Structure formats: structure tokens, C-alpha cells
């Protein structure tokens, strides 16, 4: 877990991840992708595959960074919501509206905690066991 409490899924990004996750790896040998110089024109099928894999890996890293950044921003906003709504009590407010207000504030805070957790795991969707 990162220091801000969000789930850090960066370490999941490896060539192995891109080549083995999902249902495809059962149909072909699992192999590590070896980094190739991106400036080189592939001279063989193997080199061509490596280049493609690295391009895919870059895309995935980019997507993951995007989601991580968003999850972090969302965490900050929801933490602020949880912090500030703890201080919006209006004790003098009586009657149905006051009761409703307090109940809805409680529900709002609970929901915010759930959404925060959802936001934290959203980047992990990039590494999920999906089917094509």
C-alpha cells in the first residue's frame, strides 16, 4: 500500500504480466519479453514481437499511471469529505429535517468510504483476469 492508503499496483506491471495474464498463455509457451532497442527496426519475427510487446507495455504503463493519479486525487477529495462532514453537526436542528439530515450525513460518510475503496482498486482492473 502506498503512503496515502491507496493500493499501489505499479509493481504488477512487468513483461510477464502482459504475456501471461488472461486466457492466452495456455495456448503458447510462456516467455519473458526481452527489452529491445526501440530505435532499431526489427530484423526478425522475434525482434518484431519484442517491439510490439514493449509498445503494449508502454501503453499499459501509461494507462495505469493515469488511473493511479486519478485514484490518488479521488482519495484526497474523499478524505477531505470524510474529514469535513465529521464537523457539520447541527445539534440545535430539531424535527424531521434535523433527523433526516443527520441520518443522511451518516449514510454519506459510509458511502464515501466505500467509493474510496472502489477508487483505490480501480487501477487494478488493468491487471485483472479478464476474458477476451
Amino acid at each position, binding site marked *: 500500500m502506498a503512503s496515502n492508503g491507496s493500493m499501489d499496483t505499479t509493481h504488477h506491471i512487468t513483461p510477464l504480466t502482459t504475456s501471461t495474464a488472461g486466457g492466452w498463455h495456455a495456448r503458447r509457451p510462456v516467455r519473458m519479453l526481452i527489452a529491445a532497442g526501440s530505435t532499431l527496426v526489427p530484423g526478425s519475427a522475434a525482434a518484431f514481437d519484442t517491439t*510490439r510487446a514493449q509498445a503494449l507495455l508502454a501503453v499499459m504503463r501509461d494507462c495505469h499511471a493515469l*488511473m493511479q493519479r486519478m485514484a490518488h486525487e479521488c482519495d484526497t477529495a474523499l478524505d477531505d469529505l470524510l474529514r469535513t462532514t465529521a464537523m457539520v453537526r447541527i445539534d440545535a436542528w430539531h424535527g424531521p*429535517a434535523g433527523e433526516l439530515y443527520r441520518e443522511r450525513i451518516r449514510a454519506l460518510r459510509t458511502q464515501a468510504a466505500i467509493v474510496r475503496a472502489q477508487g483505490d482498486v480501480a487501477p487494478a482492473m488493468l491487471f485483472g483476469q479478464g476474458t477476451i
Partner: protein
Amino acid sequence: MTRYVTSSVHGGSFGVADDGAYLHAHRTLASQHDVLTACAARWTRTACALSSRRMDVSVRFPATALPTSTPSMHAPDGDADMLMHRIACAVDACNDVGVMVRRLADECGRLADLVARAWGIYNAAESRNRARTTKVVQLLAKADPLAMSVIGLGMGLFGAGYGYATEGTFGVAHMSHATSWMQEGLLAGIGDRMSGASPLDTIMRNGSGVAAAAGRITAISAPANDLVQGSRLTIRQVHALTAPVGYADNTATALHDLRGLGRANADTARSGLSYATIAISRYARADGTNAWLVTIPGTDGQADSPLGWEQNVELMSDDATERAHADSARFVAEAMRRAGVACGDPVALIGHSQGGIIAATIASDYTDEFTVGHVVTAGSPIANHPVAKGTWVTSVEMDDELVAALDGAANPEQGRWLTVRGSLAHEDDDRLLASSAVDIAEGPSGLTHDLAYHEAAYASAAQLGTPALERHDDHFRRTIAGEYQGTSYWQGRIGDRGDEDR
């Protein structure tokens, strides 16, 4: 079709502590609404960005666009498909989280709105806008009352036409609704014109012209009415077969009883009561004295009733003597004397329409005789009444009822004078505690001067738990605090025989 009323509270007083708590909560929730709305939008943008990357992958690796039944030459194509699938899952996740965050934002907005309405945070601005509109219309009406009247009539006919198109009825209610924004200003301007108010008066004052005009009319109409209707007041105690007015310990119950009295007066066979009957309830206090609640219905327009149409004009005069000598005010004052209301006894008066004007008149012009602690009016034009400083006033008005606008001015917004302003609401209003249903038979739209609308307006305001309204309700409760001793009913008649007035 069930009708709904939503309300706002104007005037009254707040405690400083309440102010701070409400204001802080409102600001916090409104701010969180903005922050979370932006956050939700960023999730959506993230989803869009991921989608564009997915499209980029599909373009850069076109083989992946082929059906999976077509074998690919290169194994990595499978990785591209997988990546596209995962990005699609991530897009869904972003959208899902965005929707959830947006729901949180909406909830913050709803809660902020609830706090704002309960605290009346926008009501001052609303009152200012309304006052400006009224003033402009007043000035125009003073300058050319005929032209403004024609415009008003045109607006009214347009509203009636709209009502015919939507409900199939060509009713006055729609005319009144369409002209609600200009009623007060129009009447104030016409009043200024009739009373010969100076331009400075027109600018500086709101309804004084109406009161002055009513005074001028009364100088002629009151003697004429005395000739036609007579001026001898007959009052007798009557006994009700039912109990339309009972123990009340809050404003809502008293309003409900007021409505019950009006219905009982109209249903003689069942209630044993008749028109122009008021109710006086006695509450014994611990110190041996009594508190009183006087319930006064509105105009009935019967030929021998002290609660006739003409008395309305007398009650709205700027002349205290004319007001105090209106048949209806004399009737209620005399009934109170006979019921045993003593000089120092705390009295609360509640009235609908003319009943409310009578209540305000007694609180203004019978101060030597009665100690009126609290007045509750429903649909009564009493803004120009010089209600005694020690008297609290709770007014309930519908914004499109013409009657409450007849004073040509908005009620003063003071700590002791609170106005609940109701307006018709949409059934699908999704705000929290947005409105209250009107307890009225279904059918074509009727005039909102019906007490059922005022009752719903007060209920709508009360459910918000506004501190200012609670203070007024609490004051009303304390004014009549005591052990309920029963209610007596007093019937008034005007004619040429049996003068039993003071």
C-alpha cells in the same frame, strides 16, 4: 391530482450559535458538492483518455481487429487484444467510480440545499428581488394605473388560457397565479394614486397608499354600509354539536382547528354552528389567571354578518378609529369581553383572511384592553397594521393568492414578525423535504386562498425545522400555556335590532 406546496420562511430571529452551525454546514456541503462534481468529471475524463488509448492500440495493431476465428500470425496480437480488453474494463471501472462520486456530490448538494432552506440562506435575496419587482410595478402603476391594470388583465387572461390548455378549465386561480409577481406592486401603485401620495412617498413607502386609500373609501362606504346593513351588533353564545376547535399547543394544530371552524360554520346541520361564529378557548394558568386562544374565520359575505366584504376595507384603513370600529373587529372584541378575557390575560389570536386582519387590528388598536401576545394569520393582508411591539406575528401567505397582496406591501421582516411564504410545487421535486401535500379534494385548480394551502405551507415550513419558525411556534405555545378549559363559540349578527355592542 394531488397538489403540493413548498415554503420559505422570512423574518423571525435566529440565535448566533445556530447561525454559525448552519452556515458552516452549508458552506462545507456546498464546497464538497463542487469538489466532488469536479472529481467525478475527472473520472469521466480519465475514462475517455483510456478509451482513446484503447483506440490507439487497435489502430497500431490492426490484426487485433480481425475476428478471433482468423488465426493471427503473431502471438503478441493476443496480448494486444488482452490489453484492449483490460483497458475496456478499466474504462468501466472509471465510469463506475465517477458515477458513485457524482452521487456523493449530488447528495452533498441536496443536504446543502436542505440546510439553506431550513436556515433561510437565500430568503433574504429572494425578498430583495421581490421588493424590487414590487417597487418597479408600483411606480409604473402610480404613473399610469390604467395601462398597468390592462397589462395585469392581459397577464391574467394569458394565465387563464394556459390553465385552459393544461387543465381544461378557465379559472380565476390560473389568472391569479400568472399575475402573482405584480399583484402587490399594482395594488400599491393604484393605492398611491387613489390616496394622492407624493412621488417621494411612492418611492419610500410600500403599502401606505393602500391603507390611505382604504381610509378614504371607508369614510364613504362605512356610513353607507351602516345604512344598508345596519350597525347594531348582536352577539350570542352558541353551542356546537361537534368540537371543531379543541386543545391546541402549537401553531399547526391551531391552523387546523381554524380550518375546522370554517368548515363547521358552513355545515350548520352537522355542527350546529352558523356563519360569523368565532371560537374562544380558555387555558387556566398555574397562577390562577387565564390564557386565551381566539379563532376567527374569514369573510362569509352574508347580508347580516359582521364578517362581510365591506368590513375588509374598514379593517385596512390607515385610521385606527375606523379600523377599531369595523363591525367585525367590534364583534370579536365584544365576544372576547363576554368570554371573560381580562386586560392582563395573555391572548393569542388566529385568523384566516379577514379573520387575520381582525386579529391584527385587535393587536394594533385594542392594546389598552387586551394583551395580545401572539397573532397568527393565514392569507391576510396585514403588512400596514401597526401591531403592538410586544406582539409576535406569524403570517402564512401563498405567493399567488391575491388577498394577501391587497396590502400592497411585504410583511416586515423582524424578529417578532415571521412570514411563511408558500408556493405551488411540482410533484416530482426531488429535493429533500421539498413540499407538503395539500389536503384538498382533487379537481380543477382552485384559489390558493383556501386555508388548506396555508396549512400545507406551514407544514412544509415546519418540517424543515427552521429555528426562527420554532421560536415563533414556541412563543405561541407559551402564550396559551395552561390547562385547557374548553372552547366557547360566539355568533355575531349585524342589523337594526338589539344593539348589544359596548
